[in-house]
């Protein structure tokens, strides 16, 4: 991955920065440029907003067969988390044994290494989730 591709997403990946529609007030994570509710009325009115990212597991899977970048991590848990702020995001659950994860489990975000570009390449950081 070219460095700018990850770099430009850093606010969201490091600090859970999403957006809030200046027209209707609805919040989005990941960030959006246009509010799907307000359409053109939202253009230019989307403001950055920070999410806490605490929430619960909507669904999950334990990955045994992974892409090359993640093959050292298997088995790992991937989940869809519903934040208390109403939005949903996909991420890994860590500090949790695969057999202990369940739908409805409370989690909070954690700042972790996401991946790297080979042994001497850039290391990517971002959010994962851990039991709360």
């Amino acid at each position, binding site marked *: 991955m070219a460095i700018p591709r990850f770099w430009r*997403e850093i606010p969201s990946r490091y600090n859970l920065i999403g957006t809030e529609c200046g027209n209707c007030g609805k919040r989005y994570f*990941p960030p959006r440029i246009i509010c799907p509710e307000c359409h053109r009325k939202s253009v230019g009115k989307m403001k950055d907003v920070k999410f806490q990212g605490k929430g619960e597991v*909507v*669904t*999950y*899977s*334990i*990955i*045994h*067969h*992974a*892409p*090359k*970048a*993640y*093959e050292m*991590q298997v*088995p*790992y848990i*991937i*989940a*869809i988390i519903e934040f208390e702020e109403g939005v*949903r*995001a*996909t*991420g*890994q659950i860590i500090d949790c044994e*695969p057999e202990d994860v369940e*739908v409805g489990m409370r989690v909070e975000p954690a700042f972790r290494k*996401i*991946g790297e570009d080979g042994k001497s390449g850039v290391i*990517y950081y*971002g959010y*994962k989730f851990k039991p709360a």
Partner: protein
Amino acid sequence: MREVAVIGIGETRFGELWDKSFREIGIEAGLFAIQDSKTKGEEIDALYIGNMSAGRFIDQEHIAPLVADYVGLAGANLPATRIEGAGASGGLALSQAYMAVASEVHDIVVVGGAEKMTDVSEVYAQEILASTADQEWESVFGATFAGLHAMIARRHMHEYGTTKKQLAMVAVKNHKNAALNPNAQYRRELSLETVLKAPMVAEPLGLFDCAPLSDGAAALVLCPLDRAKEYTDNPVRIASCGQAGDYMALHDRKDICTMDATVVAAKKAFKYAGITPKDVDLAEVHDNYTISEILAIEDIGFFNKGDGGKATEDGQTALNSEISVNPSGGLKARGQPVGATGVAQAVEVVRQLRGEAGERQVKNARYGLTHNVGGTGASVIVHIFDGGV
């Protein structure tokens, strides 16, 4: 809009076709279809090819003129266009061709679908499949394509009590059908026990809950219905097509257990065709994972939401039961050359409606449906075919 008919069908065998290149399989399927339709090369007005990712699978973009060239029609300056919509690429190519004929822009059109997936490593091929989800907000965190479908399955189990056995029954049924299909990748039956004991890929989905990586191509020839009898004794009418989209990422969908794009696309297709789900005799649905078939048969409207697993377990989707679902063996057992899928589904439905499906023939079939999905449901296209013309 004028009525459109399918007058020719062709397909290659699906599987690990190591001795054949992309252009060779594309040509093979196309020639079969053209020969079947008894059209001549110079009559063809246009070619549309569904293909998901030749650029990554074989480092070759611009594949539509490549196939047109090697099928011998470059000298005729045949217009050739590639259509991409992830797993729905083939179905979208068919709909573009259908609209071109229906709108009187073209008369005779060839639709192809092709993918060559085994020229890259299995791990890399899975990464390419995952790129049809949201790369920046799903795949980058380690959500594999199987993992995303596994999360649909987990939630379906949570909400409706769907069981791993019910998921496995999809694979068992589709392998049973594929055993009767000479062009299928897996022409052998699977026991329920084998499916349930398979190594896990993404829990709760095991190896046999997942469709394979395949090479293969399929093709159709379309023409206006009122000219179809010039070419064939048994034309099949395209009764309708319905396409719908949805949020790109699974986490943004209204309901993880429902593919809204399937619901909307099917409703459009049924409305335009003037029939209901009860009128459909057979359906080729997008079973890239076993859970996908369960969602499909619910969201198209064959069964109520939540009943898909039980209906499958009870044999209501088996060959010549209430509704024959995936008589070809589906993506699961017939094989999954991604861009070919939507076209191959149509080839099977037309073959069935002509009464030429041999041992796996659905009896007294008049209406057939195809359901083709891109990504985890951000693109869906449904076609309905009528054999009663």
